[in-house]
């Protein structure tokens, strides 16, 4: 827009300001970059992987990290690094899709339930209660058992397990936020329920939602590992971080690299996501914003 610059005053949208704020949080920026690199590496696996992740070479089995296999080889002589690259495709898509599903299903349900209350709230929350009575992993196993062992069904099942948790949390936040004076003020100015929910309630619940979603991501990656270990989900010889991690358990003494590679990557991912979540939360909450000066003061003080 050409005239934006010529306007005699500065006016910036909240999201632009938030986007500017994000890079000021160093840990969040690092987390974001690391996660981006890992995602890129997984996406480009067919082009950058040095070996076939599935082909068995028994002569090369259980070799420690070296120049050729710089994360070592597993008990079938497969290159661990290549398997990590390919496994990332499974694990990351499970994590991201489960987060997406939990968000898409849990947030609207929670908002609906919390804002309108009454019978609808009662109905939805009893349904959520029903889901929450089962131990999460058991429920996922049951669902996958019902739908058949397939990675898509694993995603669906994990999403179904996580969505009610998020819905319950969003409902709680909605109940708290909708009593705020500005909600009444907005109604007194003619705002419609949809507008109130989207621009007033949701915007004020970003912090708990973002935090919960980072937890969901971590839980999903680990749960996929558990399900694969139990024989649902990723089927051998297909690689996945979780599967390879549980496979490596048997060779913990002889070939610790087999175990360290997937656990390390999962840990890095989860940590990056958590840092990113923190940064996102602060960037979206203007009250937590830091100026360049305050960042500098903080660093000098420390």
């Amino acid at each position, binding site marked *: 827009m050409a005239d934006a610059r010529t306007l005699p*005053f*500065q*006016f910036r949208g*909240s999201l632009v300001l938030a986007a500017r704020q994000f890079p000021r949080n160093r840990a969040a920026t690092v987390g974001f970059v690391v996660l981006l690199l890992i995602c890129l590496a997984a996406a480009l696996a067919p082009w950058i992987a040095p070996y076939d992740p599935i082909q068995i070479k028994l002569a090369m089995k259980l070799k420690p990290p070296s120049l050729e296999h710089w994360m070592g080889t597993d008990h079938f002589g497969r290159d661990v690094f290549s398997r990590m690259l390919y496994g990332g495709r499974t694990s990351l898509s499970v994590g991201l899709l489960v987060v997406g599903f939990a968000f898409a299903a849990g947030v609207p349900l929670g908002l609906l339930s919390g804002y309108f209350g009454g019978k609808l709230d009662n109905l939805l929350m009893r349904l959520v209660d029903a889901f929450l009575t089962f131990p999460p992993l058991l429920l996922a196993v049951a669902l996958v058992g019902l739908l058949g062992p397939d990675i898509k069904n694993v995603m669906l099942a994990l999403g179904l397990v996580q969505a009610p948790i998020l819905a319950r949390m969003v409902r709680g936040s909605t109940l708290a936020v909708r009593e705020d004076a500005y909600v009444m003020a907005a109604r007194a*100015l*003619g705002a419609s329920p949809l507008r109130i929910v989207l*621009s*007033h309630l949701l915007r*004020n619940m970003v912090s708990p939602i973002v935090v919960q979603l980072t937890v969901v991501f971590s839980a999903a990656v680990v749960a996929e590992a558990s399900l694969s270990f139990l024989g649902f989900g990723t089927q051998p010889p297909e690689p996945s971080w979780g599967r390879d991690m549980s496979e490596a358990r048997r060779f913990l003494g002889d070939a610790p690299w087999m175990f360290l590679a997937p656990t390390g990557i999962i840990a890095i991912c989860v940590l990056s996501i958590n840092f990113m979540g923190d940064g996102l939360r602060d960037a979206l909450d*203007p009250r937590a914003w830091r100026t360049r000066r305050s960042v500098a003061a903080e660093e000098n003080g420390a």
Partner: protein
Amino acid sequence: MSLLSVRNLRTRFATDRGDVRAVNGVSFDLAEGEILGLVGESGSGKSVTALSIMRLVPEPPGHVAADSLAFDGRELLALSEAEMREERGSSMAMIFQDPMRSLNPVLTIGRQILEVLRRHQKLDGAAARKRAIELLEMVGIPSADKRLSAYPHQFSGGMRQRVMIAIALSCNPRLLIADEATTALDVTIQAQIIDLVKRLTRERGTSVIWISHDLGVVAGLCDRVNVMYAGNVVESGPIRELFHRPGHGYTLGLMGSTPRVDGTGARRLTPIEGMPPNLIDPIELCPFLPRCRVAVAACRAQPPARRDLDMGHWATCFADLPT
């Protein structure tokens, strides 16, 4: 013709122990450009009256009924919620007590003003921004152009209330309801805000309902006052007459319990003894009777009736109060 005409407004809230009659038969008229004060202690039904007029009482548990609730000739109770939304913020606006919490903390001031302009005046882009700056300048916010991208927490309480007033007046409403709008502010800021509201509404001929428990504020601002007690108007009159010659035992009690700086000599404040009645139980006699210091025999014999004292000044009280 009056802008707002309220006849026998009754607002109830259903509770487990029975219906609370928060507003119980309020009637009054508000003329074009008039500033009407609504005073009374907490729980007297001032705010619920205002919310009922705006149709902002949550239903259920609330229930609003009236013989007539006419705004500019239209029956508000007959309007649908969607029609009502068109009125709120454009022809009738309301500002609230707590300026610290009446603005959304995560949205910029500019965004919150623009939202209303966009909604009611279909203004957008540069025109809307220009108007938003005008509005902020109108309420006396310095360097308004830069302040559009500020957040509420960067403003003081007084400035936030100015912003709320700017938003409320953005679409030139014909009725402005201020519910304890200056109660949370300190005295100097309070005086500035009152002057601002007085000036802006006089300029535009906006009618105002000013709710307060502070008689001093009302005396300095309003043309006329309704004194409310236990969900009803117990006395109504032009500001001078009512203050010089209170016609109801409750008004007298309120004035006795209000500190004055311009009083003659030292005077002890006399609190009103006792508690307001429970609004669940039906009340036959004067609701203020148990606490009244000037009650006469008639008060215990029959329900209170309206008595005209002067031109446009009446009270529902049997006692002849000293002038």
